[in-house]
């Protein structure tokens, strides 16, 4: 039943490795971009605030598929942006990371904002009373606590991101979903086995993330 795995025709581990790399790079990128966005959304400069709010509202309401297809058709095929990739899989991979960061950053921003909301007002007031500037209040007092409070929502964002990497198949990154599409076409008689293999792969990728970060959320939570 699972003999298609032994045929050596499909690079299953390679495909999941691409998925894992997509998730990892996008996670790092969207953490940075999301932090920047949330700093803008709470900053005292009105223009930055409105930019942050507008960006989050617009991008969050756009389907990820549209973002990624836009990256391929718009950025790559129309404007010939390759992000330094040479083979089409490389280009697809890099564009996918770009699109995933642009999209997931908004969810990271919202998770962090809910984390900032848990920091008692007295903390920020005390920090200001000590003469700290806005940047100091944010980076030394508020954000560290916000990150610890936001571990659970951030874990959910990371899990969603891992599953969202499958959309990259739409722009030709050689990830797990891309391979599954190919295998479904070639191995139609082993359909259930193919699905089981990929379902198992994603459970292996997402379940430990949830468990580890759930444990970390309990450890890191600021006791109040």
């Amino acid at each position, binding site marked *: 039943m699972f003999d298609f795995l032994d045929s050596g025709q499909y690079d299953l581990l390679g495909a999941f490795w691409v998925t894992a790399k997509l998730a990892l790079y996008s996670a790092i990128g969207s953490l940075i971009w999301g932090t920047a966005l949330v700093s803008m959304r709470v900053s005292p400069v009105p223009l930055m*605030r409105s930019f942050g709010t507008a960006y989050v509202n617009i991008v*969050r309401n756009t389907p990820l598929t549209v973002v990624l297809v836009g990256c391929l058709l718009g950025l790559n095929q129309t404007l010939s942006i390759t992000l330094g990739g040479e083979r089409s899989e490389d280009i697809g991979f890099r564009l996918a990371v770009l699109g995933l960061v642009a999209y997931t950053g908004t969810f990271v921003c919202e998770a962090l904002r809910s984390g900032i909301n848990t920091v008692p007002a007295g903390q920020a007031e005390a920090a200001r009373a000590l003469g700290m500037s806005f940047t100091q209040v944010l980076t030394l007092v508020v954000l560290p606590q916000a990150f610890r409070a936001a571990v659970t929502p951030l874990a959910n964002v990371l899990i969603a991101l891992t599953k969202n990497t499958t959309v990259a198949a739409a722009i030709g990154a050689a990830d797990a979903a891309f391979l599954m599409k190919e295998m479904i076409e070639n191995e139609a008689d082993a359909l259930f086995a193919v699905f089981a293999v990929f379902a198992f792969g994603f459970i292996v990728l997402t379940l430990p993330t949830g468990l580890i970060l759930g444990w970390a959320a309990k450890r890191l939570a600021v006791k109040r």
Partner: protein
Amino acid sequence: MSSVLYDTPGPRAKRRNLVYTIGFVAVLALVGWWVLAALNDKHQLDANKWSPFVTDSKVWTTYLLPGLVETLKAAALAILIALPLGAALGIGRLSDHRWVRVPVGAVVEFFRAIPVLLLMMFAAALYREFTTISSDFRPLYAVVTGLVLYNASVIAEVVRAGVLSLPRGQGDAAVALGMRKGQTMLYVLLPQAVTVMLPALVSQLVVIVKDTALGGALLGFEDLLSQNRQITANYGANTIATLVVIALIYIVLNGILTNLAGRVEKRLRQGKKSAAAAIPAQSAAPEIEAKTISGA
């Protein structure tokens, strides 16, 4: 909220904010100029690429509106099937019987862990191999199946969180009145939980609308997104203009839904002030909220 982080700006802070504003505008303008120059270079800003959307009603009647109808049809079908199924799974997971609770829990966790796209691709292949559904309808069936399986399990979790967020006393009181388990759930717990769940359920609609686009990109579902191929083929390679218009339709549609969810939540919160804090929605909300953010 944000005003907690900084004081009302004094003269110095105002000046500093002005400097930041100017700097930020400069960066934005630079990026904007670079984008526009790149677009102009490839003739994507030419009037004839954008004018069809304003002047030619055929773009709308032949492509965009039928695509939007397909998108809405898939989303509506998915929510209509997923809501009762999700409610049933959620209640099943709260069952007193181990043999109901455990399998239902396994099913819910399984479908929540798997990307919607894989479910859709699997469903499409399943329908192709084992059913006689004509190939015209197969993509719609596949998209709806994938959406239902995933969203029913998410809704199940929302229902469970909603019921668990109710004060224990509500269930105990129902038991004290001699209600059976089914009655307790149906007449006491669920009606209260629904108000707690409502914002989360409405925002789940956004997730469903967004996920229909997967079928358009990968399964040959003729939804709103897939119309970009037709339009760019017929109106002179206006890829960027088409994608911008399509994205705008999604943004407006989902913006309305997000707004609705926010309004419902606000009303519930206001209602709570007068009707005493019977339901601790505040503590339950983040739980539920966190579960609905997932996209595909």
